[in-house]
């Protein structure tokens, strides 16, 4: 009896009827409300397995790209395999110690008690944080767009325009204390990106022009715009003929976390942005509108929300966040602007947003992972001779596996965890 009472409400609530055939959701929606922990673990499963699979395939590539492996395979199969595993081990070892530091170095540094040595032991982690920082911003930019049903492919262009604005404030404004100058430059960077996001936003809202097309085109526009600006007298550095900006004032730079390391307070600005975006999306009326418009624009209109307003505002905030990525690079690392500062960070943002399933807090982990891969790649190459490109391959594989959760579930025989697995991602195409 108790058993039956337990089952009844479920049957009432979500009895599966004919998967696929009638276009209804596939069978078992959660029978009981899953605990938050269980949901979180399930959410992590696919990304974690995606990384694992990518590393395994990366290992196979390491082995196969070693020509001596094949030569030795027939003569001495055992030795060949042993060496192959050894080279995988040393490559990934170098990658990890390049990203996180090696235990030996830490022990030695602390034992010596020399503060310079301790600081340099932390250098790998510093490099990881440094590489992760712009990825947090571009990832957030794309994720915010996804939540509002927008596919912002233009983070790259918005990043550059933000960098142009921040750099200008960085070198043109002088004589201010850092606590005024830095925030001013950061605000300019946000504004620059926001303007570049406003254009596709208003075009979509007023004319229906698809943001994917417009943002792609605006990326090219931004590249050329940067090259043009960098040649302008007054922006270009005196005495240089190549496109490079003036050096920004030291008062506009992000202070380092620890003197002697490159990691700076931009990372914490990134964390603050994650929590701000999370609050905006899930705790504010604006975010409620963004998500309603993203999930179902016609219901949003029925409920009296402004679809045009939400689209424009979301694109502006998204662009602004991407602009902060460019700001962080200029004011935190390069100190001046060149046309090569991004090198695809805006596009990596798409991968990071996908991997985090557009959840702000997931962005932190995804960005740290990609940051670690980037930071560890160079030490790996110098230690083992395995080219940096392996890391690009691993990144691409991670993205591929994350973008195709069904593939990962198939490989590891995971049962479909929930009926609404594919939630957010923009309805963009064709609507």
């Amino acid at each position, binding site marked *: 009896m108790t058993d039956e009472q337990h*089952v*009844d*409400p*479920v*049957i*009432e*609530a*979500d*009895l*599966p*009827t*004919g*998967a*696929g*055939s*009638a*276009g209804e*959701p596939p*069978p*078992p*929606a*959660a*029978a*009981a*409300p899953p605990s938050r922990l269980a949901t979180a673990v399930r959410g992590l499963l696919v990304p974690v397995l995606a990384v694992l699979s990518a590393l395994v395939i990366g290992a196979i590539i390491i082995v196969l790209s070693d020509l001596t492996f094949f030569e030795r395979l027939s003569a001495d199969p055992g030795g060949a395999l042993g060496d192959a595993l050894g080279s995988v081990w040393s490559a990934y070892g170098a990658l990890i110690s390049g990203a996180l530091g090696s235990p030996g170095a830490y022990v030695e540094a602390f034992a010596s008690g020399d503060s310079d040595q301790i600081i340099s032991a932390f250098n790998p982690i510093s490099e990881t944080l440094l590489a992760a920082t712009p990825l947090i911003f571009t990832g957030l930019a794309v994720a915010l767009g996804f939540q509002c049903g927008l596919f912002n492919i233009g983070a790259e262009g918005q990043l550059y325009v933000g960098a142009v604005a921040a750099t200008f404030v960085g070198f043109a404004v002088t004589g201010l204390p850092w606590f005024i100058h830095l925030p001013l430059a950061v605000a300019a960077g946000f504004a620059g990106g926001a303007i570049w996001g406003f254009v596709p936003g208003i075009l979509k809202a007023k004319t229906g022009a698809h943001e994917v097309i417009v943002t792609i085109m605006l990326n090219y526009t931004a590249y050329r715009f940067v090259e043009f600006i960098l040649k302008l007298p007054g922006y270009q550095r005196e005495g240089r003929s190549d496109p490079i900006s003036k050096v920004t004032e030291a008062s506009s730079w992000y202070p380092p976390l620890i003197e002697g390391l490159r990691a700076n307070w931009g990372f914490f600005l990134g964390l603050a942005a994650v929590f701000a975006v999370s609050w905006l999306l899930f*705790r*504010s*009326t*604006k975010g*409620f509108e963004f*998500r*309603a418009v993203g*999930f*179902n624009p*016609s*219901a*949003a*209109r*029925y*409920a*009296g929300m402004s679809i045009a307003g939400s689209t424009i505002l979301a694109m502006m905030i998204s662009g602004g966040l991407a602009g902060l990525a460019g700001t962080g690079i200029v004011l935190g690392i390069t100190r001046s602007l060149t046309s090569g500062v991004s090198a695809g960070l805006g596009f990596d943002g798409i991968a990071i947003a996908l991997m985090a399933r557009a959840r702000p807090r997931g962005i932190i982990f995804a960005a740290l992972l990609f940051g670690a891969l980037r930071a560890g790649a160079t030490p790996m190459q110098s230690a083992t001779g395995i080219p940096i490109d392996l890391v690009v391959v691993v990144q691409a594989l991670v993205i591929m596996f994350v973008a195709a959760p069904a593939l990962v579930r198939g490989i590891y025989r995971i049962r479909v965890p929930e*009926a*609404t697995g594919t*939630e*957010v991602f923009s309805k963009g195409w064709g609507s």
Partner: protein
Amino acid sequence: MRLELRGITKRFPGVIANQDVDLVVEPGEIHALLGENGAGKTTLMNVLYGLYQPDEGEIRIDDRVVMFHDPGQAIAAGIGMVHQHFMLVPVFTVTENVMLGVESVRGPLGQLDRPTARKRIIEISERHNLKIDPDATVEDLPVGVRQRVEIIKTLYRRSDLLVLDEPTAVLTPQEDEELFEIMRSLKAGGTSIVFITHKLNEVLEIADRITVLRRGRVVGSTTPAEATRESLASMMVGRPVELVVEKTPAHPGAPVLEVHGLVVRDDRGHVAVDGLDLQVRAGEIVVIAGVQGNGQTELVDAITGLRHPVAGTIRIGGATVRPEPRPIFEAGVAHVPEDRLEDGCVPGFTIVDNLVLNTYYRAPFSRGIRLDREAIERSATELVANFDIRTPSMFVDIGDLSGGNQQKVIVAREFSRPVRLLVAAQPTRGLDVGSVEYIHRRIVAKRDEGAAILIVSTELDEVLALADRIAVMYQGRIVDIVEPERATPQLLGMLMGGSLPLESAAAASVSPAAPGDPGT
């Protein structure tokens, strides 16, 4: 074909969809499978059609045990299925759609053999009076005819047993009748039919045997001769059900909604509402009856601010309101939209969030731009209990609820605030009797609180059950206003079809709006 299902059990994690179901369909029998949404009808038919494998039990055809691992095997065994949502390629002709999957070819290059297929389609169509043009493109055909294409598809594959999944859900009353004629003709030719529905009248009209499912089990089997609407309803729901809610005579007050000379265009730019006048007073229920597509949708859109009228005025509570959803909502208008998944709620949002979909920006649910989650959840807890929304948790995605429960969420949201005018389009479409009863009761209660209520319905039962006045809409105009006492299905059917009986034509020309209306 004689079909026998024995002891079919189908489990999904956490749910038993079918438990020990027995069903026998004799050759040439129309067997109605009756049950509420979520009773397991469709699951059972998907088991039969090879889309699911049963966990226990067996399927016998002509006393031979069969196993279907995919629909192809079921089709080969002579089972045909017409799904609720049609599986047709809109840009193909009828012939091409029918051939799809069983194309016959001729010549050395394997050309499609359209002429032969076309000939067989004409044969089938003539034998069962299906009236179909094999060369028409499917996208140009009305819904009722598309359904016939689906039926021809099954007959073309030589099905002896036809499963019709809620075939009348998408049809007008006239099309219903045509479908029943076809079903009788098929039956006379020896085809067995399983007819899935939750509409009681249809079952009593057409079925030879009736099997009722509730919560995955067979709760009874009967015949139309032995059954009544009431007995079937209580079998389905498991308790006595009022098919027509009790209501006292209306005591109408001042006009709340006044529409004059309204002209509205549809999405394609055609005039859909054509100089319409209408008045709804406080404390009365006006039902707009009519065949789908006579401008009802555009009328409701205009009243609720979703579509801008070309001409005419709409006054709410005596004032003209800016024609946008939010100002109209703030003037005290509640709207239960026609398409609940498209407009009424946001699938992907939780029940909690859907309950504040249009009130989220006001006190007590927000302060400034900060949402007050506590207040929102407190109110949701109350509404889920008060409106009997059946769900394991209020944090469930609304898209995972049954249609009836989704509608209850929308009704809870729209009914839970002070409302002067309630506009509800097809408020019970696709819902089972239990939910229909519940929602009708709520609407009447809202009227008794003094709200003006405008319902749009294409279901005559609903029109007659709810209305204090019936406004019949035809080609964008109100052709007549009928008191429910003198409204017979025949009279309404004629008016809905556009023919004006003489005496009411005279009455309509004298007073197109409410009787006793001083202004017009």
